[in-house]
């Protein structure tokens, strides 16, 4: 057992332990020196990134890997907490750690003159830990605990600018919605434990008979995790929270949101995998009904997100509504996959949906960083009193152009690759859905053209005369996202074959997910 093998074997636990350890070391480290604190945060996150990369190479090569907390081997009754790392969970972990590292680099200079930064970094690392925990865990109660930690920590982060009343209001709305939702998830977990006397996702999936109570649990899990991901009529907390939090915090809340989206995937594909095709309702199999429910909610959230984004004047709130529309695209792809389970274009839709998770994280992240840079330099939130920023904010304008083309799904950039896959496959399910998706993508382009004209072009405003370019670490963060957007745009197959296809296969054949645990006993 070489040293690397032992590291690999322990990596699922270390991926959670290191950021947690760093989170609680932060108050002590920041007593020494503030610059040391920033370096400490970046170093700890990149170590976690290395472990995730190490684990990714192994999981993509040899299939799911289990990690048992506190016990050597699988013994019945399965009481220990299990981590089951799958191709889809390691893909989401890569996105989370990428967002976290870039957000730390960004907040290096964005948060320079704020105080209370050791609590900021502690909460920051707690949200990263809980997002990673939600993605790696194989135990449904452990998923609930990480969901709650991410709720509490990100709510405290939304309220970071405590002197602004709106941030407090947004944080209070977020915590009330999340805690009511999480209590319903706990109710669903109680239902599972009552019937199957197990908390492990694989044993539950194996034993699930889709009784009356399981229907209730399925609905509660889909609705709550959909609300946490920002699905249609329950999306209203998202523009409030994204509009009023510091931009590096928004990146982290977005990774928690994508972890909830991963939760929906895990519930529908793995937990209810066996019963999706067998149980009948209105003489349709269950997967058609769930698929069309998700598609309906997705179309509503795309329409609401885009139409509301058009009339916004606050820049960050406008991107919040676009984020709701982008989550709608993801659920549209997942809904098509579930509705048309087993057909060829279903797997293409799943590839599009999973790739769109990565692309959306990069594009919306880039736009939030740009909005943060503008707020940092001009201290103005509303687009009405901005103008002519392109003159002295050259790099930010170039990054904004890349972000604009990417989020609207224009060809050379990464938004197009995943939206192209989604359009192609959704068209084969029902052409009208694809038409609505394309039109709304054009409306997103219109929204950001408005921002381009209002904020960047136009004459020089007198009060914005002495505007300087954003500091270097912000430009570095924006540069990373812009480079990633171009690379994924020009070489989609690189990411599609190595990361997205194994992740889609891991979701589709849920038997492998179950046998790694149930078979092992």
């Amino acid at each position, binding site marked *: 057992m070489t040293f690397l093998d*032992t590291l690999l*074997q*322990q990596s699922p*636990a*270390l991926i959670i*332990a290191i950021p*947690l*350890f760093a989170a*609680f*070391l*932060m*108050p*002590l480290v920041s007593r020494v020196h503030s610059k040391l604190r920033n370096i400490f945060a970046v170093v700890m996150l990149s170590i976690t990134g290395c472990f995730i990369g190490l684990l990714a190479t192994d999981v993509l090569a040899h299939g799911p890997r289990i*990690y*048992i*907390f*506190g*016990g*050597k081997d699988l013994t019945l009754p399965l009481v220990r907490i299990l981590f089951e790392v799958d191709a889809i969970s390691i893909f989401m972990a890569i996105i989370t750690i990428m967002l976290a590292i870039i957000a730390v680099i960004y907040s290096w200079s964005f948060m320079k003159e704020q105080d209370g930064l050791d609590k900021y970094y502690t909460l920051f690392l707690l949200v990263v830990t809980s997002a990673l925990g939600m993605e790696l865990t194989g135990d449904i109660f452990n998923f609930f605990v990480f969901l709650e930690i991410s709720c509490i920590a990100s709510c405290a982060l939304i309220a970071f600018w405590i002197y602004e009343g709106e941030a407090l209001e947004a944080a209070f709305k977020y915590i009330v919605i999340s805690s009511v939702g999480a209590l319903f998830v706990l109710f669903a977990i109680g239902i599972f434990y009552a019937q199957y006397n197990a908390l492990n996702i694989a044993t539950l999936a194996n034993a699930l008979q889709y009784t009356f109570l399981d229907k209730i649990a399925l609905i509660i899990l889909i609705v709550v995790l959909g609300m946490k991901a920002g699905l249609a009529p329950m999306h209203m907390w998202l523009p409030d929270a994204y509009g009023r939090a510091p931009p590096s915090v928004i990146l982290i809340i977005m990774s928690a949101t994508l972890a909830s989206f991963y939760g929906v995937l895990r519930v529908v594909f793995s937990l209810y995998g066996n019963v999706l095709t067998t149980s009948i309702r209105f003489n349709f199999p269950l997967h058609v009904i769930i698929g069309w429910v998700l598609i309906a909610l997705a179309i509503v959230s795309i329409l609401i997100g885009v139409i509301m984004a058009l009339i916004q004047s606050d820049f960050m709130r406008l991107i919040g509504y676009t984020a709701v529309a982008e989550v709608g695209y993801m659920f549209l792809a997942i809904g098509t996959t579930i509705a048309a389970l087993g057909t060829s274009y279903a797997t293409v839709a799943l590839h599009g949906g999973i790739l769109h998770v990565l692309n959306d994280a990069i594009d919306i992240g880039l736009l939030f960083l740009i909005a943060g840079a503008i707020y940092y330099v001009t201290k103005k939130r509303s687009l009405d009193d901005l103008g002519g920023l392109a003159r002295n904010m050259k790099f930010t304008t170039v990054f904004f152009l890349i972000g604009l083309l990417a989020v609207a799904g224009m060809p050379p950039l990464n938004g197009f690759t995943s939206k192209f896959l989604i359009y192609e496959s959704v068209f084969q399910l029902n052409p009208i859905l694809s038409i609505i998706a394309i039109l709304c993508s054009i409306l997103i382009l219109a929204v950001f053209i408005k921002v381009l004209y209002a904020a960047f072009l136009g004459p020089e405003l007198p009060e914005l005369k002495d505007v300087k370019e954003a500091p270097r670490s912000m430009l570095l963060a924006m540069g990373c996202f812009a480079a990633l957007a171009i690379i994924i745009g020009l070489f989609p197959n690189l990411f599609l074959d190595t990361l997205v296809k194994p992740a889609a296969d891991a979701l589709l054949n849920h038997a492998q997910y179950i046998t790694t645990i149930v078979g092992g006993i």
Partner: protein
Amino acid sequence: MTEMTKIVKTLANILFPFTVIFGLYIIAHGHLTPGGGFQGGAVVASGCALLLVAYGSRWVFTRIKEKRLAAFESIGAIAFITVALLGIVFSMMFFGNFLAGSNLLFGTTPATGSTLADFNTGGVLPLMNFAVGVKVIAGLFVIVLIMAYASSAKEWGS
């Protein structure tokens, strides 16, 4: 909260040590009797609430520094995670119970069936209980103090 009369203060003086000792007892015997880090910490924090009610928040604030509580809280959390990481070092498993069965601290394995409680059992569990206890005591102290401070705005004249 404003100060209370002399009688309440003397009663608080008598009661406070007993609540703290009772809370520490619950933390220490977490692996034997019902209780553990969180419940014991809550009992000790109720002692702090007792002091706040009896002596008023201004007096308590001069005695308990918020900075030191934050340090205690992170020390408790770091102790918990180091014990878990030591599980990897000694027994190749995160949260591994490397002390159980070894004749080191808390090492003896208890006999099955209804036996008398033996404090020296449970391996890593008591250590984790102590760490969680320290963290919860500091954490709940801070919550009680901040709530007292925020709700008595007129007393502080802010």
